[in-house]
């Protein structure tokens, strides 16, 4: 079944939205979504890597021998991750300090490798870019929502701005690692409820 370009893009926004539908890439999801800003930053970095690695994998899909395809994908992905890391250091250093080790860890994010293996290596370049962009935007959205919930509850702020009065006692459990699991679980539950209607 051939999908249109728009479908390739929009499937990443709901049908296959990571990390809720494709329950992949949980490590950065749980670790960096302490705030909206971090969620968006991580999402954009991952989107960049997804789009470019999908593009290159798709272009080279007839050149890369099947036996060493994973190694080739990893080289391509690692290259773009390092590009993101360098650019972020040069142009958004405070964000880089916040995200730290999780930027290099995009290399081992299953979503990126998963899209290369499952989609880009079997499809033409343009749909591959649409797929990467869709999944990337979906990932960014998820991380922002997760970051927003955790930041509002855990710090009482949204994108650094106070949302509650001074009497608000931050529910700091939400910005700790266990809070991330609970929050992700509840959101996943809500999404399944909404989807089952």
């Amino acid at each position, binding site marked *: 079944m051939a999908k249109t370009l728009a479908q390739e893009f929009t499937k990443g926004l709901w049908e296959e939205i990571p990390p809720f539908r494709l329950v992949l890439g949980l490590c950065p999801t749980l670790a960096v979504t302490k705030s909206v800003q971090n969620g968006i930053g991580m999402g954009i970095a991952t989107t960049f890597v997804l789009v470019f690695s999908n593009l290159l994998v798709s272009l*080279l899909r007839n*050149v*890369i*021998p099947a*036996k*060493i395809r994973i*190694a*080739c994908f990893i*080289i*391509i992905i*690692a*290259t773009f991750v*390092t*590009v993101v890391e*360098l*650019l972020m*250091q*040069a*142009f958004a*250093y*405070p964000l880089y*300090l916040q995200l730290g080790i999780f930027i290099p860890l995009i290399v081992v994010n299953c979503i990126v490798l998963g899209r290369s293996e499952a989609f880009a290596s079997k499809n033409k370049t343009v749909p591959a870019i649409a797929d990467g962009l869709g999944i990337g935007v979906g990932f960014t959205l998820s991380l922002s929502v997760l970051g927003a919930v955790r930041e509002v509850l855990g710090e009482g702020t949204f994108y650094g701005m106070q949302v509650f009065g001074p009497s608000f006692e931050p529910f700091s459990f939400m910005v700790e690692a266990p809070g991330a699991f609970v929050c992700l679980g509840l959101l996943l539950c809500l999404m399944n409820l909404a989807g089952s209607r």
Partner: protein
Amino acid sequence: MREMVKMVIVLTLLSSFSGGLLAAIRNNTQERIDSQVLKFVKGPAIQTIMEGADNNPIQDRFAIPVGETEKNFFVGVFDGKPNVVAFETKGGGYGGDVGVMVAVNVESGKIHGVSVTTHNETPGLGARVETDEDFKNQFAGVPIGTETQVKKDGGDITALSGATITSRAFCKAVAKAGQLFEKVKPKIMEKLSTFSG
């Protein structure tokens, strides 16, 4: 056999391309990254210890070759004289190196102040090294080159409670600063004598 050759060729080409691209980006962003690091990591640390200086210590810096690399020295003008220099050293902590900015008064030979630049210590324990002023104030006024040690090791420094390893790393960095200062003192004095802020 042919397949094997193809695999080797593809991987080699891909890796060299990746290496070339990254080298190019690194060369082009290096300068910007260095200035960002100065601004966001070393900047605040320098500003804290050089409080009350008549100049901008981040701007007024010079480099002296130490070993194979060049080290930055930041000059602070107090009472109209450029008599304080600050530089960074590192000591191995609990989660990697703890970077310490040490400011030395070249006239009295005493430590003017110390401040943390980078660390990866445990939040709530070792990470307090960044904020605990009482701990850091113990170093001010100590003659540079003193073998600073925590009390547990027979020294005079009261360690951060629950963070002996971090405190040791900090002491080690300060001690290293003493050795470095002795080594390059003539060059520092030479640079300072021609300094016109």
